[in-house]
């Protein structure tokens, strides 16, 4: 096992390098991904190493996604970058009405082994058109796989898994953690594109947190530990398909559930987790589920607004306390 400390950004880059070597059919394209190496530097060095398998495209997201789909149908394994998740909305058709249907439509005779890399979330005043969290919308499209790595090791392992997977997969990176450091295992076998992870064991309450919120939840867990509340933190990693079994096992133990995400509340992925709890987990629960999310409004630019829009450890801790108290009052939950 060859582990190395690296950043989330470089972990993604290492995964791309490894995939390009492992699968000669892998292509990487998108806006500014070749010579510039991506506006966030994730694709650096690929063009030098892999030549015309890496190229820049016009500003044409529909064509990028559609061409990825077409190429994937005849033997390529495209990995395309949609620079910001917000820009998916000009080309989403190719994923929703196109890629997601291929395997099902053809009863498995065709597949669309493409990967979309994108990034989302709020960071330094990125504002309404550059920080939307789109995972729930994508999870409502059967046929797409959706992953959200929360740390360098997962960034590496999940991107590799997505590329190796024969279904269309979207890996949603978080811009605010590109510089986060951690160990990656560069020689580990490629994982399946599925599976949650319990990132902190705890007895009292289950906190399911997505993407950057995993770190926030872990900090909240520290605050709560000081008060004698022992939180278990679950990182779903893959939202679609979703590893409910791991969450259920956790709430079977803790009887309390808090879900944390940066997306707005209504119809966010937290709704699905809460719904599964209300259906399949109901008899485990000793009190209301609590959702800690961005409020139901666009993401703001002003730092004073952004600070309250994005859940932080204090807010998560308050939510957990509410869950422990069995309070149905969610006035403060966003």
């Amino acid at each position, binding site marked *: 096992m060859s582990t190395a400390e690296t950043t989330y950004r470089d972990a993604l880059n290492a995964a791309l390098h490894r995939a390009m070597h492992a699968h000669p*059919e892998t*292509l990487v394209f998108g806006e500014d991904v070749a010579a510039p190496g991506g506006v966030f530097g994730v694709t650096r060095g690929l063009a030098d190493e892999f030549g*015309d*398998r890496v*190229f820049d*495209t*016009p500003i*044409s*997201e*529909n*064509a*990028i*996604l*559609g*061409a*990825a*789909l*077409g*190429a*994937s*149908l*005849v*033997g*390529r394994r*495209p990995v395309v970058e949609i620079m910001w998740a917000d820009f998916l909305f*000009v*080309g989403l*058709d*190719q994923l929703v*009405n*196109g890629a997601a*249907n*291929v*395997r*099902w*439509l*053809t*009863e*498995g*005779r*065709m*597949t669309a082994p493409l990967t979309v890399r994108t990034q989302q979330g709020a960071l330094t005043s990125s504002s309404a058109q550059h920080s939307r969290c789109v995972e729930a919308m994508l999870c409502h499209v*059967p*046929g797409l*796989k959706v992953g959200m790595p929360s740390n360098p090791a997962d960034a590496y392992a999940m991107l590799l898994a997505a590329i190796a*997977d*024969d*279904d269309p997969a979207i890996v949603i990176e978080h811009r605010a953690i590109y510089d986060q450091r951690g160990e990656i295992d560069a020689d580990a076998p490629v994982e399946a594109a599925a599976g949650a992870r319990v990132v902190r064991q705890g007895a009292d309450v289950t906190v399911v947190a997505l993407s950057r919120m995993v770190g926030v939840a872990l900090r909240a867990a520290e605050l709560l530990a000081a008060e004698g509340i022992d939180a278990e933190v679950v990182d779903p990693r893959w939202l679609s*398909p979703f590893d409910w079994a791991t969450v259920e096992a956790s709430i079977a133990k803790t009887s309390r559930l808090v879900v944390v995400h940066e997306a707005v509340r209504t119809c966010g992925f937290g709704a699905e987790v809460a719904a599964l709890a209300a259906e399949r987990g109901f008899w485990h629960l000793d009190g209301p589920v609590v959702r800690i999310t961005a409020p139901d409004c666009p993401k703001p630019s002003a730092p004073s607004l952004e600070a309250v829009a994005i859940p932080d450890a204090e807010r998560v801790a308050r939510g957990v306390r509410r869950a422990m108290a069995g309070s149905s009052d969610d006035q403060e939950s966003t």
Partner: protein
Amino acid sequence: MTGPETVAAFRTMVTIREFENHAAQLRNRGVIVCSLHLANGHEAIAVGAHAALGSSDTVNATYRGHHWAIACGIPLGALFGEFMGRATGVNGGRGGAGFFADPDHRFLGENGIVGAGAAIGAGAALAARYDGSGRIALTAFGDGALNQGAVHEAMSFAAILSLPVVFVCENNGYAEYTPTESMFPPGPLESRAAIYGFPGVAVDGGDLRAVRETVSEAAARARAGGGPTLVVATARRLAGHHTHDAEQYRPEGEKARWAEESDPIIRLRAAILGEGLADEDELARIEGDARADVRAAADAAAAQPASDPAQLEQHVYG
């Protein structure tokens, strides 16, 4: 095209027409439930273009795609089965008449979203650049699709990457109930290719051999690394937009006049006889055979089991 090739193409065109007409009848009788976008009047485009392709080239098309599917060689029974919702349909009845694909015949699929297929075709062409196959991709769409942003993006993308793709625009004079000329400025549609920097050519889509010729040139250019071509093939839509179109928007008598003036099958028939490539008896036999094949395929499909509901949730993920 040799004489035998021309006669074979005639047979395919007649088969398409018989197939479409029979499918429409079956829909009237409730044997087919899904909506049908018939290709009557478009036959020479698919058959002529397909004759210009090599055996590894790919095709993708729109919901109005049965002519392409048949030209690509998808068995009639698999198509009827698809339309009828049979387990033996080309996609097990999952997609229906407006959305199916068949990798075994290099048919990458119909697409029910106007314009979405153009980028998929460009992507298939992109793939060809890396596999040493010398393959090209042909992608077909309607006139109305030229106003869809996706088609613009696909053409621009293909141009910048000089992809081996032939864009075939089947200009049938209408987009649903809207006449083409009301949604485009005056002037030939193929001239749009200029802004992408690749050739745009017009062809009479009712003339089988002209289509084959034009697409051959475009395919040869693509294969030689010359990049995309836009071929605008004029067709006359000899049917409604779909099988439940009352066609009130059509000028009185237009369809009958078009059928008389420019039915591509009648034109090819006359040419074959005129050039002595086959005689009346042979053509009549071909027509009879085609009709019989279509009916036999439909009857056989109808006898197959319906798609199995227990399988519905299979194959969402691998």
